[in-house]
């Protein structure tokens, strides 16, 4: 057991700390994470290697060798001082890694730089009304007509489609091939004629995702990642990793600390809620879980650094346990506040700028999105514990 990262990393950590001390005031405030301030901050972070760290310089990144310890130190220090750690979104978190791994030289040159600079916003067109958990059942059709794909069909739950410049989209290009072998991964401009985006209001009261309709949308043939029919592998190349990062323990730690502060300041009948043994025990129970998840994450990190080490099921369980834990944690804060916990938007009694309700709902979304909790349990039991697969259900024809 050796939890130190070594002296060279101490130097690196103090560089990050110094950077934050000198620059944190330039970070974007509030929720406007797409404005100019956010883009300027992103540029500064890339120049210093604090985001897009391993993306090659020629594509606009910092160009460092992969070093997961440095990445972790950056994440830890930014989360400690609660400073915005750079632009996110599906373009940066999903498409860029996919292109780096499977894209052509031209695609990398064309898309990566504007995406990481926040100039090109992407949406992910995977789910359809008939293909959610069973994503490979998707039916949006792409038919080759000369040098163009012609796309017809519908996507749903497309986050940010209403503001996206481009979409990365799974389509069925080989209707006669087996389910998983007939899919292709296409990229196209959201301004292409034939695309209609209808916002869907979600439980937060805002429209964050959409229905996206395609009618004879014509896409140049070369705007495909991987080969025809390889789309399922392309999409899965990074899906597993993405799942592991949805609910990091760092952030859960920051949130539980904020919850302790909240319970010290909130009162009922003049008594602080932290002094109420019932609520306090609920808090302590969650603190145990956050702690367990932090140490689980150390094990994941360690198994990456030491290839001989067996990670057990530590990676496979993080999406399920991490998202459920965050939902519970935000929910306890609401319970602690009672009716005040219901406050929303312009309510003058709002606490923490409304973050508790917002995150409570957001994490329910993450419990469902990215592979539901039930799908995670299927994966854990079948791939993790080696239990038999579900017998196939043949549709009567």
């Amino acid at each position: 057991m050796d939890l130190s990262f070594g002296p060279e990393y101490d130097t690196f950590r103090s560089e990050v700390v110094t950077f934050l001390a000198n620059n944190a005031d330039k970070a974007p405030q509030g929720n406007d994470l797409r404005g100019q301030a956010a883009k300027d901050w992103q540029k500064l972070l890339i120049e210093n290697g604090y985001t897009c760290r391993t993306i090659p310089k020629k594509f606009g990144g910092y160009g460092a060798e992969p070093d997961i310890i440095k990445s972790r130190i950056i994440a830890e220090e930014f989360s400690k001082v609660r400073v915005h750690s750079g632009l996110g979104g599906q373009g940066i978190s999903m498409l860029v890694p996919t292109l780096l791994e499977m894209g052509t030289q031209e695609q990398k040159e064309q898309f990566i730089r504007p995406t990481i600079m926040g100039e090109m916003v992407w949406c992910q067109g995977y789910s359809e009304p008939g293909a959610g958990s069973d994503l490979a059942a998707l039916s949006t059709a792409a038919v080759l007509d000369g040098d163009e794909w012609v796309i017809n069909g519908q996507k749903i739950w497309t986050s940010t489609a209403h503001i996206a410049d481009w979409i990365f989209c799974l389509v069925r290009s080989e209707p006669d091939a087996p389910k998983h072998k007939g899919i292709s991964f296409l990229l196209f401009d959201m301004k292409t004629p034939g695309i209609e985006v209808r916002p869907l209001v979600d439980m937060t009261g805002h429209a964050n995702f959409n229905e996206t309709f395609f009618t004879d949308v014509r896409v140049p043939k070369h705007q495909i990642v991987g080969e025809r029919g390889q789309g399922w592998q392309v999409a899965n190349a990074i899906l597993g990793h993405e799942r592991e990062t949805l609910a990091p323990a760092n952030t859960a730690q920051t949130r539980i600390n904020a919850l302790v502060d909240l319970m010290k300041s909130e009162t009922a009948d003049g008594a602080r809620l932290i002094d109420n043994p019932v609520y306090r025990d609920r808090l302590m129970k969650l603190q145990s879980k956050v702690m367990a998840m932090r140490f689980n994450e150390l094990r994941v990190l360690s198994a990456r650094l030491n290839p001989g080490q067996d990670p057990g099921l530590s990676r496979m369980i993080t999406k399920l346990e991490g998202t459920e834990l965050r939902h519970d944690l935000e929910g306890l804060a609401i319970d602690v506040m009672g009716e005040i916990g219901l406050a929303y938007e312009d309510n003058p009694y709002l606490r923490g700028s409304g973050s508790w309700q917002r995150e409570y709902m957001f994490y329910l979304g993450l419990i469902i999105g990215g592979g539901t909790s039930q799908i995670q349990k299927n994966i854990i039991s079948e791939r993790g514990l080696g239990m038999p697969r579900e017998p196939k259900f043949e549709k009567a024809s």
Partner: protein
Amino acid sequence: MQFGLSEEQILLRDNVNRFLDDNSPLDRVRLYADGGDDADIWAGLAELGVPALLVPEEQGGIGLSPLDAAIVAECLGAHIAPTPFLGTAVMAPTALVASGGDHDELLAGIAAGTQRVGVAFSEAIKRRNDARVEVRGERMFGKSLFAFDAEADSYLVADQHKHLHLISASDPGLKRTHLTTVDKTRRTVELTYDNVEAQCISTDSSVFDATLDIGRVAIAADTLGAAQSMLDQAVEYAKQREQFNRPIGSFQAVKHMCAEMAAQLEPCRSMVWFAGHALAELPDEGRITACHTKAHLAEVAQFVAKTATEVHGGMGFTDLVGLHYWFKRCGANRQWLGAPEFVRQEAAVLQGIVSD
């Protein structure tokens, strides 16, 4: 950076597991549950150096760390092995060494496996009923409940002030009565003290704390082993038991029960490792991690014990597969050295979230 067991630790684990596979299978545990003793198991473990783990080399021990003790405890829990490990090999040496006194002879006896030291701490953690320990001028009066183990040669007793005293099991003023509990894999006793000679080991509450902390981490590790074994048994059973012409493990309700157990239990392993490591290496985090680990393992194991039993159907409820021994081991571990609610309260006090 390496968060995990070293090669030596993996070897230790494999050796202890191999010994217990051969020498403490369920049938052997049943003999103990029916009134037999654990002498041969303990003697065999002594040959592997288990009682000597935490005894310093100068006193004839091996001088390993709390994490190593946790690793062994996990093996013992997995095999629901009857041994005096917790008191004799974990808590007693910790107290004797931390006290700073000269206990060379006793420590050497512990390391050799010839001295068993029991522990009576319940009254200093949460007094129940009329139990109470009082010491006046090196004489002990009163009563301790649920001291372990039943066959000890001497006992480490904590009084109301968290002072630690050593008493001999053969003192004429000591009465030792077996207390039957649901957990038949370890025996606990009531100790009544009528003018018993008490050798004061420490009046420093930090010695009591250090002893309690390592005891809690070892119990948590024992629980981890027991719960993991229940999960493994449930998964195996679900793969081979058939109903409706298919293995019950292909039913999603059953799979999800197993996945939930695994998802909750997997982080517990990292937690136990960290807690063991922290006791020796991270003084600021040791105590609070010990509390949380004890409490969290108790909660997860309660869920696993119930669910794994359900996966076995009626068979889980019978004595035939003996799953109930693991169920009850988890249940006893939950209450020993502090029930989760009280331990979490201690964690809150330790953080200054609330005053005592």
